[in-house]
Structure formats: structure tokens, C-alpha cells
């Protein structure tokens, strides 16, 4: 099955939901740092889960550029289809 931004986005939300301690509504524009306030250990777990889900590598150096869930979905789509 081909993965696109539209299939990836809901999957990411599913993986992020357990980390959503403030129970905010997740959208493509939700920001990891300012809305979700994830610490670095949580981010590492999340990245590992996403990598396992799609059998990819998300290099650490890409992460600072990915501010929102939508941007993360785009990056995953690019790697999966790359």
C-alpha cells in the first residue's frame, strides 16, 4: 500500500495521542515544542515508534526543522516514498 500524507497524518496522530498530556486537539498545525511540550526522551520514543511503523530511519538532524505534525507527516512521506 502506498503511504501518502493523508494516510500518514492520522497514523502519526494515533502515535502522538498517548503523549498528549494536555489533551489538546491534534491537527496538522499542532506544534511539538509549543503545543505538546514534549521532552527529548519522549521525542526519542516517538521517533522510534514512527521508524518502526514505516520501517524507516528519521535522522536526528532532520528533527529541529519539523515543528508541526503536518511537517513531520510530509517528511515521513518523503522518506517512505524516497
Amino acid at each position, binding site marked *: 500500500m502506498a503511504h501518502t500524507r493523508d494516510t500518514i497524518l492520522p497514523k502519526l496522530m494515533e502515535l502522538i495521542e498517548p503523549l498528549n498530556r494536555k489533551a489538546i486537539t491534534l491537527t496538522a498545525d499542532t506544534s511539538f515544542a509549543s503545543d505538546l511540550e514534549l521532552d527529548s*526522551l519522549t521525542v526519542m520514543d516517538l521517533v522510534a515508534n514512527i*521508524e518502526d511503523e514505516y520501517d524507516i*530511519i528519521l535522522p536526528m*538532524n*532532520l528533527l529541529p526543522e519539523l515543528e508541526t505534525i503536518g511537517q513531520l507527516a510530509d517528511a515521513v512521506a518523503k522518506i517512505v516514498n524516497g
Partner: protein
Amino acid sequence: MGDLFDKFDPIIAEKAALLATGVNDPFNLVMEKVHSPTEATVNGRETILVGTYNYMGMTFDPDVIAAGKEALDQYGAGTTGSRVLNGTYQGHREVEEALKDFYGTSHAMVFSTGYQANLGLMATMAARGEYIILDADSHASIYDGCAMGNADIVRFRHNSVEDLDKRLGRLPAEAGKLVVLEGVYSMLGDIAPLKEMVAVAKKHGAMVVVDEAHGMGFFGPNGRGVYEAAGVEADVDFVVGTFSKSVGTVGGFVVSNHPKFEVLRLVCRPYVFTASLPPSVVATAATSIRKLKHAHNKRQHLWENSRKLHSGLKAKGFKIATETAESAIIAVLMPGQEACARMWSALIELGVYVNMARPPATPAGMFLLRCSLCAEHRVEQVDIIIDRFVQAAEIAGIPLD
């Protein structure tokens, strides 16, 4: 107009709140006098040092000091130059020879600190399109070197052979890869399963670097480090180390058998764009390294001290980060920031110096009092340290099991 310092306000407030509880400032300590590798005057009090990484007690070795004084007289106080310009003296050559002899390698390159050795190696060895695969608990110098370069950076779970294998398996087979490991992880004092990890790295065609900062001097038959004890010397491409722990002075290095290794002297920016170590420092380092090679009795005594402190603290009900004494670092777990600072402060007032560590330096948000043993600690000193830990726990209100 914004004050650029405003972003540090949370840290300033956190520190002020901690000091308001009446504890000594753990990050503002002055060693007023240093009497030996294990004793100093701190805040006017005679203190046993058990948090200095001075594992082999070489700082006051008479031969080491004599070599430093002689070099100071003969070559002056400093080189005022980079290694690649006017900063390579006879002593820099000699310390590189001493390292080659100690490690049994064909090449050795000395940097001004271990931090810079890691910075240089990580930033230079892997370029765009290549990969660095590092343990999540890697030292700051390794992370900073990765941030300085252009390689893609992949982390694996601390000491997990399986996770390393999985991540390497996902990378393009033909891409250049550098796997970065440490022999001893300095926060918890645990050692890496190097035999298994190096085998996995080689299976995937990666080059391997092992940072032996906290293993040099007392692991393996020749004291080379955990990788020697694990029997993987032939498969390790680079060993990084420091003079600031077992060697007893300051400086850093990389040793290797790679035939093209010497090119790093031209391309490694943290080697080129900084002044070389002073002649007295490289002379003390060379003398110390030559002595470490044969320091079998010291090694044995250091291990005895580590095991004694570990079992002694455990018997008194302290929680230790490792089940047994895996290295010369014994990390005692504290329930939280304030309790950790109270305990540290009580120890200082009882005349014991340990190392306090807290997030983000520690993994999983832990608060630690890290003890590092020295081969020069007398058995009685270790007993005193254990007694004072018990007294300090009472003063600081730390529950013991």
C-alpha cells in the same frame, strides 16, 4: 528591546530556588588546596575526593611531575601555536609515540582536549550522505561533533544490540557508516556489550569508534580499555581517549591503524584551529602513559576499591545504578533534585566530595551522586566514605532500604 539573557531566566530561577533551601552550591566549588589524588581542602575543610575521575592517581606521581617541570624549564610555558603550524614540539611527538606503544597502533593524534577529539572525529569522518549511528546516552562531545558535521545522525537505545542491528539494517547498504560506542558510560558507570555491538556494526559494514575516556588504564590486559577486555581490538577502527582522567593531566587523542589516518591532521578543524597543549602537559602525559602500561598493582587495587564501595553502599541501603561494580564509577541514585543537593551538601560538610549529576546530562531524568574511585584510595578511606554516606543520608533525610 529584548535582553538576550532573558531566555536563561528559568535556569537562573531554578538555581536561586535550590540555593534558597540552604544547600552549598554544587556547581561553584573551589579546591583551595590539593594534597594528593584523594585529598584536598574544600571550603576550609579536609576532604576526601571521590568524584574526580583521577582513576589511577597519576596527578601527583613524582616521575610525572618531574617530567613536567623539566619540560617547563626547557620548552617554556606554552607553544602559542596550532599543531599544524609552530605548535608541534618534540614532546607532542613523544606523547604520540607513547600512545602508539600503549595502544599497539600505527597512528596517534593528540588534540587539546578529549572534547575536541570527539568534535573533530565526528564532524570530519562522516560527511553528507553518510551516517553516524550513536548510543542515545553518548557524551555531549559526541553529540556536539555530530551537530557540527553534515552526516545523518541516527540514535539507538542505550546499550541495545538489537536496536543497533535494526537501525543499521534500515540504512542504505552502500552508504558510509560510523558506529560510535563508549566503553564505560560515565553517568551510570555501566559498560557496553562491545563484543556483540562491534560484531553487529561489522556485519553491516560500518566503521567503529570506541570512546575509552573512562576505561583507559584499568580494563584489559594492557589497560587499553573495555574494547581490549572484550577482545575486539581487531574490529575497532578508532579509539578516542582523554588525558584528563587516568592519565592525570589534560588533552585528548585518537589512535587507529587505518593507513590513511594521518590525513585527519589536515582536515580536522578542532585539531587545526586551536593552540596545541603546553610542553609541560605533553611531557607529564607521556610519562604517565608509559607508567600506566605497567601499573598492574594499581589496576588491581582500583578494582578492589570499586567493588568495596559498591557493596558497602548497597549493604547500607543505597540504590546504585548498576547491580555490580562494572567500572570505577559508582553512581548512587537520589530521589530528586532537592534531595540530591541536600545529600551532596551534607557530604561536603562531612568532608567527602562526590560528583552531582542531573538532567539533561543524566539519562531518564535521574539525579545522581557519582563516586569515582582512585587506585590511591586507601581501604580505610573507602570505609570512611561509606560511613559518611550513611551520616549524610540521615542529615539530608534520604530514606535507605
